[in-house]
């Protein structure tokens, strides 16, 4: 099991060390109590401070060593943020340690000088002087007592030993001494005054009978007394007591007691000095420990989120945008961490959006590319030429069929397409686009391969909002179709002509045969028959003449000359003759813009439409003529109240030689269609009108 030094474990360790220290403290105190009477070192406070200092030193050294080892290992492993954390911790430790050490060193000097000053000050001299004074006064009492003892002993030597006790009592009565005792060498008291005067003990006896005698022994009980004694002879001695004055003794005791206290304190001055230094050392260690602890905590508080941020940025730089910093803090660092997490989340979301957009774009691009290829293939496969231009008229696309139609050589720039002189007709078609959304023309071009007939359809290219961004030109080589149509038309014309010519020929032949028969029979009604026959022949020839004239007129349509004209005025001038055959209803605007047209040709076209209407109405009917402007075009509507147009005939109405009338040439509506086509307009059946036949003519304004 790996034992990690978590804060909880660290506190447990500190508590265990504290308990050990308390146990050690109690043991040492007990030892000191045992040795209290023999040691000069017993000091509970000092011991306690010493234990506290040792505990703090051990904890401090442990914490410092641990942080140093961790920092060193982190530096060796090149862990992110290790250098910053070590630097931060060092700064905090130095910030706490340097002032504390400075204060501690100052305190040592201050305490040393202060304690020295205490015991070097006049107090010390005063104590010494006062003690000397006490000693001197006591010495004086001692000397006086000793002098009296010697004098007393001299007087007692003057008498025989048996007389000495009574003489002593007699001399005591003289009042020169406070107390006395005459004793023998073996300690027997021969005389004593007062009775309370203590018997000299063995030590005093030995002193009394010593050569020097007992000099100034002080007894404190029963009352302070200075006792001196000398030997009178070798078997008898005298002890003299001098009572110390109460006030003097009281003052002396007071002084000596104070001096005793001072001396005891002075003997412990080193302990006092060290106690104070130990207190400051404990304070310094506490401050340093607090600084280290706070520094460690703060450096961890700062460096760990920074380390997380650094790792996070590295993860993000490696592309791991899902990396999040798991660090819960409510301070500014927590805000930075939250901002980082939000930023990475947004970046990740943006990246996912970007990737999705890229994928969609790639899919769209591939789809567009496929579509482009499809359209390109389609365009290349089409048998019609397709050209698109931009809004400036520059060609953007042109398919191979268009190249073939236009005879572009391989490698020739497409910008040449519309700039060649022979292709002016195409340019002319495009020039009409701004006025009309769609232009359809058949043009004949002379190319290197001869003349070709092209169906040119030009359309404006518009975006969904209606802005024009180019033109689309579709070229269809209808040379073969046109030729086939012409052949078919001629075949139809020949058939119709044969039919139309055949119809008059039969009456003519029959009339001629009847006249020949009547002539051969010389019939009496030959004259009538001849008259009727000639009449018939003349009528049929007239019919044939009319038919030939129509053909001639269709074949000889003159070239159109366009010039601005008033279409309502033209209509009014035309309809007047037809008012006798039908009821004409005009709906013409008062102010209609002029229209570029050939009045003669356009008049013919309108007349053909009116004649058709009059001819199909068996009775006098109504003809409605209206004119309006729509989308840059003049829209002319001509409606009658006749039988109408059968649906099966609508698609062939404008083909040459198609007629539903028995005597019609079938060229009227074909001429109308051709004239309007040459005007850039068109004619069509009015599908919305069901009361009769209706036609709508459109002309560009």
């Amino acid at each position, binding site marked *: 099991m790996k034992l990690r030094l978590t804060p909880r474990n660290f506190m447990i360790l500190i508590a265990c060390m504290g308990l050990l220290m308390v146990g050690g403290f109690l043991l040492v105190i007990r030892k000191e109590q045992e040795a209290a009477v*023999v040691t000069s070192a017993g000091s509970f406070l000092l011991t306690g401070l010493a234990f506290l200092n040792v505990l703090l030193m051990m904890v401090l050294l442990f914490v410092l060593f641990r942080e140093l080892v961790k920092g060193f290992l982190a530096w060796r492993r090149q862990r992110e943020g290790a250098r910053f954390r070590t630097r931060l911790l060092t700064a905090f430790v130095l910030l706490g340690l340097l002032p504390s050490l400075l204060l501690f060193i100052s305190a040592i000097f201050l305490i040393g000088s202060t304690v020295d000053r205490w015991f070097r000050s006049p107090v010390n001299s005063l104590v010494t002087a006062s003690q000397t004074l006490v000693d001197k006064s006591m010495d004086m009492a001692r000397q006086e007592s000793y002098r009296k003892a010697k004098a007393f002993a001299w007087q007692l030597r003057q008498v025989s030993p048996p007389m000495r006790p009574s003489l002593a009592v007699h001399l005591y009565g003289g009042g020169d001494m406070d107390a006395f005792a005459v004793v023998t060498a073996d300690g027997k008291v021969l005389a004593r005054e007062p009775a309370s005067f203590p018997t000299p003990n063995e030590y005093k006896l030995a002193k009394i009978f010593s050569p020097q005698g007992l000099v100034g022994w002080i007894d404190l009980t029963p009352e302070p007394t200075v006792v001196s004694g000398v030997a009178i002879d070798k078997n008898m001695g005298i002890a003299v007591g001098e009572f110390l004055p109460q006030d003097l003794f009281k003052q002396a005791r007071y002084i000596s007691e104070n001096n005793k206290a001072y001396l005891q304190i002075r003997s412990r001055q080193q302990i006092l000095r060290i106690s104070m230094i130990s207190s400051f050392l404990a304070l310094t260690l506490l401050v340093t420990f607090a600084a280290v602890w706070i520094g460690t905590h703060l450096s961890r508080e700062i460096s760990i989120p920074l380390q997380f941020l650094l790792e996070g940025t590295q993860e993000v730089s490696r592309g791991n945008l899902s990396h999040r910093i798991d660090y819960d803090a409510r301070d500014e660092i927590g805000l930075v961490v939250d901002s980082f997490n939000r930023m990475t989340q947004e970046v990740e979301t943006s990246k996912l959006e970007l990737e999705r957009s890229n994928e969609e774009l790639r899919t769209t691009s591939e789809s567009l590319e496929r579509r482009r290829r499809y359209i390109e293939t389609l365009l290349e496969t089409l048998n019609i030429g397709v050209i698109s231009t931009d809004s400036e008229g520059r060609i953007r696309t042109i398919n191979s069929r268009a190249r073939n139609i236009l005879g572009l050589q391989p490698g020739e720039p497409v910008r040449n397409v519309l700039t060649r002189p022979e292709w002016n007709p195409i340019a002319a078609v495009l020039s009409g686009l701004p006025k009309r959304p769609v232009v359809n023309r058949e043009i004949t071009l002379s190319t290197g391969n001869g003349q070709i007939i092209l169906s040119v359809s030009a359309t404006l290219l518009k975006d969904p909002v209606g802005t024009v961004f180019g033109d689309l030109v579709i070229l269809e080589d209808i040379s073969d179709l046109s030729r086939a149509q012409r052949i078919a038309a001629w075949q139809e014309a020949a058939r119709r002509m044969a039919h139309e010519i055949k119809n008059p020929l039969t009456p003519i032949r029959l009339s001629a045969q009847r006249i020949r028969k009547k002539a051969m029979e010389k019939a009496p009604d030959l004259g009538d028959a001849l008259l009727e026959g000639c009449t018939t022949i003349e009528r049929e020839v007239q019919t044939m003449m009319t038919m030939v004239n129509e053909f001639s007129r269709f074949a000889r349509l003159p070239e159109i000359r366009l010039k601005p004209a008033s279409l309502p005025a033209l209509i009014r001038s035309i309809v007047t003759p037809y008012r006798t055959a039908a009821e004409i209803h005009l709906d013409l605007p008062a102010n209609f813009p002029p229209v570029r047209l050939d009045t003669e040709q356009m008049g013919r076209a309108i007349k053909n439409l009116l004649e058709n209407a009059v001819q199909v109405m068996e009775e006098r009917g109504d003809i409605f003529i209206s004119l309006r402007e729509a989308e840059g075009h003049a829209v002319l509507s001509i409606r009658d109240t006749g039988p109408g147009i059968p649906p099966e005939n609508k698609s062939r109405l404008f083909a040459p030689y198609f007629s539903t009338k028995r005597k019609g040439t079938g060229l009227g509506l074909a001429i109308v269609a051709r004239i309007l086509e040459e005007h850039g307009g068109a004619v069509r059946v009015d599908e919305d009108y069901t009361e009769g036949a209706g036609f709508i003519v459109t002309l560009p304004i």
Partner: protein
Amino acid sequence: MKAMRVIVLSAFMLVLGASAQAAGPYVKGLVWSYQDRDLVTSFGVGDALDRPDMKEAIMSTRPVSLTFTAEVVKHRTLWKDKVITHEVIVHTVRYDNLTRQYTVETKVNGDVTDKSTVATWEEMAQYMENIRDLHVTSVANLQPSEGGYSLRVRVHVMSNFILWIIPWDVQTPWVSQTLSTP
């Protein structure tokens, strides 16, 4: 190089310790005899009260004690010596700066057996530093047939505390003499 440095430092500490031990208090005048079927001994201690710290302590009127320990031990082969008897005598002195007299007392195994007052330092030192005719044990406690007894004494002068934590006793080494058969 580092190991050599450690060895030299350790040797220096040992020499220093030994020299400190040699300069400390010592037992002097150890004699013993059998008197009235008791083992009686007398001995003293030198370089005890003459120490400056002891002098200062006494003159500051603080009580100062010397502890005399006498033991009779029986030697045992391959085993720790057995303590037959253990006597502790404590001499304590208190100086009175008013009377300039020294009060000395003797405690034997915790009981005050003697107390007196002397006037001079020499008298006090004579009293304090010497033990005379201490009855250590009765010969009845000794088995003459077994033999191998020793009398050993030691005097504890004072207790110091290195850094106020580590107890450091200033005392004499054990001084022993082999006891002859009573």
